[in-house]
Structure formats: C-alpha cells, structure tokens
C-alpha cells in the first residue's frame, strides 16, 4: 500500500461514519446534562442560601473556564483517582458536567421568567415546594426553555469536537487520522465541517423558529 493514499469515497465514508460517535457523545452528554441541569437550576432558585451558593459556584466555574481545560482535568484527574485513562469516559463525564452547568443557568433564567404571581398564587393555594414546582412553575418554564435548550444543543455538538484532543475518535479526530493518511487537509476538513453543519444547522434554524413563534405568542 502506498504511504499516502488519495482521498476517495472510502475515506469520505469513514469520516461520515465517525459522526455516529459525535452524535452518541452529544446525546449522552445532553441527557446527563439535562438531569444535572435540572438539579442545578432547582438548587439555584432554592429558598435556602447554601444550595443556591453551591449551584452559583458550580455554574461560575464551568462558565468561566475553557471546556478544553475541563476535559483535561477530568481526563488526568480520573487517572489520579485510580481509574484507567479512558478518553470515552473522560469526554462523557466532562461534557455532562459542562452541559449541567450551562443548562442549569439557562433553565434558572426560564424558571425566574415565570411571573412571580404564579408562585404566590400556588403558595396561597397551600402548595408546598415540590407540588408548586411540579405542577405550576416547571410546566410554564419548560415552554420558555425549549428554544434556548435547542440552541445549547448546537453548542454541545460543537463542543464534542474537543474530545478529539484527548484522543477520542469522533468526527474531528477521524478527520485528523484520514488527513494524516491522505494529506489532503483542504478536502478532509471541508468534509468534516460540512458534516457538523448538517448536524447543527437544522437545530439552529429550529431554535430560531421556536424563539420567534414563542415571542409572537407572548407579545402583548
């Protein structure tokens, strides 16, 4: 086999198939981040001081540091705490924590956007914290949350590309590998970019449409 092979359909197809790992990583981080994010958002609007402070600190740290550093810290940190170095696990954990912080902050905003009269009315009806959240606040907040959440999903999908740097073979890493074999960076990275675009653009358009529809529906 020649040292440098041409960029043909096979190479193209290998890159396309690697997108499944990008999708899988995004899906797991989004699901995990959804659970974590809800927890953070609820802590953030809690009536007691300490949970609120902890959630604020968590959000500050994750929003104030680069995702790449978060990935490195989890990657090398896992080794220290006795786990084998595993890029797949490290990427999943780091992106889940990252998504928890960002979704937590987005959803906090949505919870606070529900008019305070709703909360007061619920309290007046004798509903305690759990029922108030479950039946009054969260159903209304979730409607506000849909558009920015989809918007964040785009950010998360793009963020998974950084897993390539710690050696997890997803879309970007596969592109690097194919580039090393074919040495046609222009074609390879155009292909990689095009696949990300196909994944992200429909979501961006969807988020924008929903936002527009929501602002029209709530316009006075």
């Amino acid at each position, binding site marked *: 086999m020649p040292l440098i092979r041409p960029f043909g359909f096979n190479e193209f197809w290998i890159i396309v198939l690697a997108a499944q790992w990008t999708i899988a990583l995004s899906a797991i981080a989004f699901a995990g981040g959804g659970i974590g994010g809800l927890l953070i958002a609820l802590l953030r609007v809690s009536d007691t001081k300490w949970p609120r402070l902890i959630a604020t600190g968590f959000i500050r740290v994750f929003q*104030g540091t*680069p995702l790449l*550093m978060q990935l*490195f810290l989890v990657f090398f940190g896992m080794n220290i705490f006795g786990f084998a170095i595993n890029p797949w696990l490290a990427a999943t954990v780091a992106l889940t924590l990252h998504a928890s912080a960002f979704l937590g902050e987005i959803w906090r905003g949505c919870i606070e956007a529900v008019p305070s009269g709703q909360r007061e009315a619920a309290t007046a009806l004798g509903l305690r914290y759990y029922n108030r959240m479950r039946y009054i606040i969260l159903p209304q907040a979730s409607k506000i949350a849909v558009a920015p959440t989809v918007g964040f999903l785009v950010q998360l999908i793009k963020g*998974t*590309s950084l897993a390539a740097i710690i050696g997890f073979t997803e879309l970007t890493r596969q*592109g690097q590998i194919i580039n090393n074999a074919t040495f046609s*960076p*222009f074609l390879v990275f155009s292909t990689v*970019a095009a696949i990300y675009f196909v994944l992200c653009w429909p979501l961006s358009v969807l988020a924008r449409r929903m936002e527009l529809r929501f602002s029209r529906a709530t316009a006075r």
Partner: protein
Amino acid sequence: MYHFNFEPVFAGFDQLLIGAWLTIQLSVAAMMIGLIVSIICAAGKTSGIAPLRWLIDVYIEVIRNTPFLVQIFFIFFGLPSLGLRLTPNSAALVALVVNFGAYGTEIIRAGIESIQKGQVEAGTALGLSKLQIFRYIIMKPALRTVYPSLTSQFIYLMLTSSVVSAISADDLAAAGNNLQSQTFASFEVYIVITIMYLVMSIGFSTIFSVIEKAAFKYPLSR
C-alpha cells in the same frame, strides 16, 4: 494515595504567565479586529443589497454551526494548499477574528435593529450625512444596547482561544501542555491553568462592568 506536587508547576510559573499574556493579547486583538468585521458585516446585512446579505448570512451560518477546532484546522492545515501559509500564532488570530466576527455581526445587527426608524429620519431632517447618521445615531446607542452581550461574547472568545493550543500557538493552554510534558505533573498543571483562566474571566468581567458604569453614565431615553 496520590500526592499532589505543585512545586514543578510554580517553578515553571513564568512560562505560564507568558502564555497567559499571549492569550490576553490574542483575545483582545481578535475582539478589536472582529468588532470591525462585525460592524461592517452588520451594516452590510441591514443594507438593501440582496447578494451581499446572502453572502454574509452564509458566513454567519457556516461559522456558527461548525466547531472552532475544525475552523482552525481548516485555516492552519487546509489553506496552505491554496497557497496561504500562516504561522500558528497568526492562524490562531485569523481563526479567532473569523469566529468572533460571525457572532459579533448577529449581536450588532440586533443592536442596529433596536434603533427606531424615527431616530434615523430625525437625523436626515437635521441634514446629517449617511456616515454621520450611521456613526452617531445608529452605532452609538446600538453598541450601548448590546454592550453586555458583546462583553460576554469576549469572555467566551477568550475561553475558546485555549483551543488554538491544538495547532501549538503559544497561548496559555499550550504553555500548560509544554510544562506538563516537562514535569509530568499533568493534573497539577491543568488545575493551575484552569484557575488562571477563571481569574482572567472574572477579571475581565469586572473591568467591563467598571467601563460600563463609567462610559454609559448618560441616561437612557427612548
């Protein structure tokens, strides 16, 4: 039990400081140039010329829907095949400008669209030239309106700039990569660097809010 050893990290702290300084320079330069790109693109987008508008739309959508890492690989590895060869640091700057420009355009366009038509008409009635209207009547209040989004976009840019270490530019993250390969104290190095990034983002947001209070003291009237 693992023993943390921060000594080698602090022995090489001057390397990290040099890296941090380049990160700051890179981010500030990228924002300055990116802001100019954004203002031009936003003016183009709100102008009536359709092909120009489409072109800018394509630019914004492509940049906003692809990862920064892929953009920088494309610029650093892909462009030399078109005859455009850049050093890691200048490729990093170009990539950050192109990236910031796309987000900045949308932010500034939103600001421009928040200006009421009557303001522009009043400017025309006062006999101001088109450029004067754009500068004093549209841009000045528009920039004020979008100042918070612009500053948070800057912080985001600074954090994103850590990715340029992937093409071995000389920023803070790359200084960290070098230090950890010399000392093998990976976790300690990245802890310190992460804290440095945190300090920089908190520092910049403090500076920005001080500037906001000083520069936008005049009352906001509609």
